[in-house]
């Protein structure tokens, strides 16, 4: 992760679940440029390059955010709301990963602009497959926009 390029930002407070998700991504070789933050506040600091992440101010955005919903302090939906309200982060694709299949959350997640809403399947195999598919889908789909972003960044900060 030298030069600060991050493909996937995983926002997940449960370390076991995070480990499981990372292992699933690993199986699809998607874990190389991944950053894991443990709550909503940290996720927002990372995305807005604040506090401990202040040095990320000129670094490109992650290509996809995998966002858990139930987290202490700042929940997933609040992170999503703040991301979509900020010009810097509003175009980052967001995939909500949640244990919940409650209709309320699905509707709110989509209305806030989530690109996908995935209920983590109970079965490990299905879970691994779902995570892998998602990672691939968003990484490939957003290739273009990320390249564009990188080009923009280079124009602003020619090194």
């Amino acid at each position: 992760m030298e030069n600060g390029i991050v493909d996937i930002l995983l926002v997940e407070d449960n370390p076991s679940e995070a480990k499981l998700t990372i292992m699933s991504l690993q199986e699809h070789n998607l874990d190389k440029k991944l950053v894991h933050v443990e709550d909503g506040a940290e996720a927002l600091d990372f995305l807005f390059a604040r506090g401990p992440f202040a040095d990320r101010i000129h670094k490109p955005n992650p290509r996809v955010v995998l966002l858990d919903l139930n987290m202490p302090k700042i929940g997933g939906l609040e992170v999503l709301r703040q991301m979509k309200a900020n010009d810097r982060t509003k175009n980052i694709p967001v995939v909500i990963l949640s244990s919940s299949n409650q209709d309320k959350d699905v509707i709110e997640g989509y209305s806030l602009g989530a690109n996908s809403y995935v209920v983590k399947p109970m079965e490990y195999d299905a879970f691994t497959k779902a995570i892998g598919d998602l990672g691939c889908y968003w990484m490939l789909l957003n290739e273009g926009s990320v390249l564009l972003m990188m080009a923009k960044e280079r124009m602003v900060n020619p090194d």
Partner: protein
Amino acid sequence: METLSITLPGQMEHTGEYLEDVKLRSDRLMNYFLMAFFLGGLALAGFYDTWNVAIGIGGLSLIAYYSAKYVLPDSSLYQYILSAVLGIFMAQYIYQMHGLFEMHFVAFIASAILITYQKWKLQIPLTLVVVVHHALFGYLQYSGYDKVYFTQLDYMSLQTFIIHVLLAAAIFFISGLWAYNFKKANELYIEQAFEINKLEQERFEQKALKDMNETLERKVLERTSELETVNKELEGFNYSVSHDLRAPLRVIQGFGKMILKTAADRLRPDEQDNLRDMIKNAKHMGSLVDDLLDFSRMGRAQLTKNKVNMNAVVQEVIEEVKAANPEARVKIDVSEMQLANCDVTLIKQVWTNLISNAVKYSRKKEDAMVQIGSTGLNGSQVFYIKDNGAGFNMEHSDKLFAVFQRLHKVSEYEGTGVGLALVHRIVTKHGGKIWADAKPNEGATFYFTV
């Protein structure tokens, strides 16, 4: 006029009570009047020395009256005797005063006194006594009998007698009329009083009813808000369950599988089996949580009823069930069903659970066969699904639709015991009924209406 006929017995009772009261009051009054008449007789005795008559006739009259009253207290005979007795007192006074004309007025006093009973008929004995007395004594005096004192007038002829009697009769008639009118007026008054009382009672009851309704309404609002709170809490609970119970189970399963994959060569076969058991149980518990969530969500789901083509739904479900159980060799026979008015998503869940069950419990049979269709019962459509599988003992049928109740071992037939509870809940929510008929090892038939 229905209300009148209902209240009439009450009114009669009320009038009856009133008349009883009139009788008692009048009787009390008569004690004084009779005493006064008797004493009057004694007072007059001095004029012509008629002590024997005053004590004898007066005493006999009192004895007649009080003995009748004492012997037959419930009969009104004593009142008629009273009427006659008052006439006799008149005759006694006339005799005592040797035909003093003014003594004839006593008859009018008697007639007026009797009005108090409010019975026109009480005028009759008095009238008879007066007529008989006048006729007899008048005739005897006229015929020249000595010691018969009827009048001191010298013109007492037949004509005068007739005028006397007619005038007396007119007065007695008027007194009777008054008595009659008094009674009628009082009855009317009582009826009205009773009616007013009833109206006030009704108004009071209506107010009480209104108050009660208001209290009830307030209570309903309170309960509704309580229920809403409880329901919200329950939703919160479900939410927590779905998040917090599922996550650890997924982690247990995930790491278990991971170890099985990466460390299989380092584990003994029995250790591998234990690990598989652990994974299987975590998986089972995951299904329980999911099913339970479905079950609880179904309870709160809103129904959207439409005309549903049951055959299309059943066909769709059969394909899904077959896809999920590719190894099961079960023949499924579906006959033509009518359209049903129900929620298509929920009814699909019903068919899914019922058809999965039928396949699950009959797949071990050689020639497993499931029949689906509908029949009419009392004009309503009954859907059925019949299999020739494991069946169950009807003794345990009360547990069939209860949550987490199973009639078979998990090792024989997998499941969480929520499926039929969910089916029951959906059918009940539709206002329908579900029941079953089964025999062990011969199969089961489920029937439902929506």
